[in-house]
């Protein structure tokens, strides 16, 4: 963890060598998702509700997804851009250093201009939490924190899976993009507005629903069945990391025996 912060510091220094491009990228990264939310707001002005959902509730879903996606792009970017590391041979360098590959890949790259997306998500989330119809309690506060932590873990897990693929193939990466970007776009809105099979897919196969939709039901006291299940559902995102890391280890072993 200490080493990770050192990596963070050196990358920040490097980024600040080019302040102009840093600020421009940050601003564009903030404006892009925000413009989408403005569009959604327009639709709400016209139609009032989206299914059973009010605007602040949708904004809550939206805010969480963009906040955690921003966090993972910022702090787990090393895995997101890992195929580069393999292609230019930098991964060999990581293997001759006495640290775990996970820390080193995480530390290999940070994307600080994603702070824009992150801040924007944070703002939207904050506004939504204040304006949504939530009866607050300690448990609900914990749930919000869990949503953010596990969302970060979930997207990092996606990045790790995507990275692992590049041990085998460079071309297969688009599949990963569909999952990550497609999943993100879908999960900006409460999952129940989609067909049943979509909800099931993103609850049980790719647990995206567990980081905003399911706990949102708990926040709004709309959960069916066991409330505790809905409250703790974000933990699935954290657990999701375990198989991802196992697969990653397999990938590293494969790399070492093929020399790709």
């Amino acid at each position, binding site marked *: 963890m*200490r*080493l990770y912060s*050192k*990596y963070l510091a*050196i990358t920040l*220094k*490097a980024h600040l*060598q*080019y302040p102009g491009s840093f600020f421009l990228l940050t601003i564009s990264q903030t404006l892009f998702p925000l413009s989408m939310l403005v569009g959604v707001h327009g639709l709400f002005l016209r139609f009032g509700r989206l299914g059973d959902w009010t605007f602040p509730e949708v904004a809550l879903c939206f805010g969480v997804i963009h906040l955690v996606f921003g966090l993972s792009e910022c702090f787990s970017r090393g895995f997101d851009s890992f195929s580069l590391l393999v292609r*230019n*041979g*930098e991964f*060999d*360098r990581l*293997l*001759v*250093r*006495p*640290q*775990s590959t996970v820390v080193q890949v995480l530390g290999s790259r940070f994307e600080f201009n994603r702070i824009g997306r992150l801040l924007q998500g944070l703002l939207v989330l904050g506004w939504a939490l204040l304006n949504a119809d939530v009866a607050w309690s300690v448990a609900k506060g914990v749930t919000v924190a869990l949503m953010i932590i596990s969302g970060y873990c979930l997207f990092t897990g996606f990045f790790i899976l995507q990275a692992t693929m590049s041990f085998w193939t460079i071309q297969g990466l688009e599949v990963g993009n569909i999952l990550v970007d497609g999943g993100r776009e879908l999960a900006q809105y409460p999952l129940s507005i989609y067909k049943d099979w979509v909800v099931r897919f993103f609850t049980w196969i790719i647990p995206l629903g567990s980081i905003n939709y399911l706990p949102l039901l708990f926040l709004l006291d709309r959960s069916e069945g066991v409330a505790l299940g809905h409250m703790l559902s974000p933990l699935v995102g954290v657990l999701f990391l375990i198989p991802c890391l196992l697969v990653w280890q397999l990938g590293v072993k494969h790399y*070492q*025996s*093929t*020399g790709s």
Partner: protein
Amino acid sequence: MIIVEDVSKTYRIAHRPSGWRAALTSLIHRSYAHIQALDHVSFSVNRGEILGYVGPNGAGKSTTIKIMTGILVPDGGCCRVMGYIPWKHRVDYVQHIGVVFGQRSQLWWDVPVIDSYELLSDIYRMSSTASRRTLEQLTQMLDLSSLLHIPVRQLSLGQRMRCELAASLLHNPSVLFLDEPTIGLDAVSKLRVRQFIKTINEETGVTVILTTHDMNDIEALAHRIMLLGRGQLLYDGSIADLKRSYKTIQTITVQFENGPASFETIPHTTIAQSSSGRAQLSVDTTRISVSDVINQLSGSLKLTDVYVESPSIESIMVQLYEEHDI
């Protein structure tokens, strides 16, 4: 120190024919070509030795280095460095080695060199006093003090290579792997890098494995050379022995005054080149001595200049490559 036994490695390379049709077929069925990069290679290296590892491109040098540094796992055979099996005990093992890939930097591109060193000393879990002491020594030996605060991207290649060497030695490794450390350097920088490698080997007793295509590097540094070709070890011994065995053919160049002469009378000597007033002869010194040849020549000719040369290490290498057809 290093024991490599019977190590083999085969790469499987996807064979992708050109053309759209072939590209589509390859999505479903891929054919692979198998390339034997290393074919039962065995050798050992002693502590403190500088080993020059040479061979043409694609001979398997990099593969051997990658196996010895734990980046790759061989298909067969065994490799132990200081008792570690590199790819099995990777994290513990690499604490004791330093690696320089001449073509790739290990420094952080956009920040001053010193920042990279600080991060590296954390990566190698060094105490700040220990790392400061080594850095001071290296700064002095490599004359780095003026470079430490410059971002890496602004350094010249020669300056950067000195910084790279320091980076690979910060943690006091016992083995130093140098993969083409002088590639692309100018003459002065090359000499400096060579001098430094020599000094650090003498002072710290670090074992050095050096691959290069520059035979002058080898001649200046290596106690011993290993020649690899098509995945097999073709020569393993000292440079002196190699030179001695190839010194049997010497070249004599003579210049003389009186017109065209015939040299056919001298035994065990072939004419490499001859024109009016100048001739180049190859002498098999196992059969006849150079002085005998010169004596016989001066009997029939009025010599103005005689020049005797033994083959350069470079030309010996070319001969070796040709002999082994690699």
